[in-house]
């Protein structure tokens, strides 16, 4: 490969990864979400142990997506891989795994 084409690959690679500033922004958002989670868990805990769980789950999912998407470069690699076999294999396995866990949970019933 010539020097020019190597440089082109370098540039393409750089285009698909976040900048340092973007990493810091993602980190600040993650930190803020963690603080919000803790506040929510403490402030909305009822005396009987009940809590509004769904906001916590939503915040957890957002944090999951931020780390996987930005830090693990999934958003950026997906742009390169869009439509390729890996994307379908990855998404198919993910959906299958989630379905299996949902079925396992649904199948359990406790009796004291």
């Amino acid at each position, binding site marked *: *490969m010539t020097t020019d084409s*190597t440089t082109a*690959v*370098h540039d393409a*690679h750089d285009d698909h*990864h*976040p900048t*340092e500033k973007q*990493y*810091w922004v*993602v*980190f600040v958002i*993650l*930190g803020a979400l*963690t603080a919000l*989670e*803790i506040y929510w*868990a*403490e402030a909305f*805990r009822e005396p*009987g*142990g*009940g*809590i509004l*769980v769904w906001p*916590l*789950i939503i*915040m*957890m999912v957002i*944090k*999951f997506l931020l*780390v*996987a998407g930005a*830090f*693990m*470069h999934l958003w950026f*690699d997906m742009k*390169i*891989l869009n439509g*390729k*076999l*890996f994307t379908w*294999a*990855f998404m198919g*396995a993910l959906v299958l*795994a989630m379905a299996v*866990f949902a079925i*396992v*949970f649904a199948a*359990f019933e*406790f009796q*004291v």
Partner: protein
Amino acid sequence: MTDVLDENLDDANVFAGNEDAVDGDGHGTDDHGHGGGHHSSLGLSNMKLAMWLFLGSECLLFGALISTYLLSRARFIQELLAGNPNVTSTMPDFLVEEFQEAGSVQPLFDIPFTSASSFILLMSSLTMVLAHKAVHEADYRNSKIWLSATALLGSVFIAGQVYEFTAFYREGLTYTGNLFGSAFYTLTGFHGVHVTGGIIMLMSLLVLAFRGKLNQDRAETVELVGLYWHFVDIIWVLIFTIVYLIP
């Protein structure tokens, strides 16, 4: 050890069909300029694909552990509230009373302390991506700083987990005492072992860096370790919310 790591990296490049990446000194010089390995028909380098497959299997492992924890905790609480002596006799009376009063295991946890640990692990993910970026841009001085920071933050997290386990054990929650203790220690312990494995990988990279062998050609190696490290961080994001925050 680093010589072995060196040879393994070269072998991995050859295995990936990327013989051009290995020169006489063991330095990669592939077409991509980042030790990127050969791109498979799936559109991803073989090394990266292997790491993703490994992480996929890890998803199943932790999925099973988290599911087991949730089911075990639910059963434990049900039996505790029903006053089952087989369960209540496994812990000190004050802990049983606290759990029964709250209707959950939350009184055991020190949320501010665990929150600090979570923040430390999140911060280590940031330093990891900055380390990868530094190696990618041939900024070797900063790459050493960020790799060291990541290993240090991971070590602080592990130290916190050891402290937490010790505190819980002293309060009366043992590994073999009851279903909740077994599930809790297994889940968080497995995560701790993974973090420790990540720290060992980071230390290996640091040794390579200080010997001048972690150059731009090996940016993908740093990225692969980063993928593992971020995965461990993601698992903690789930554990923190599911185990510590949701009753």
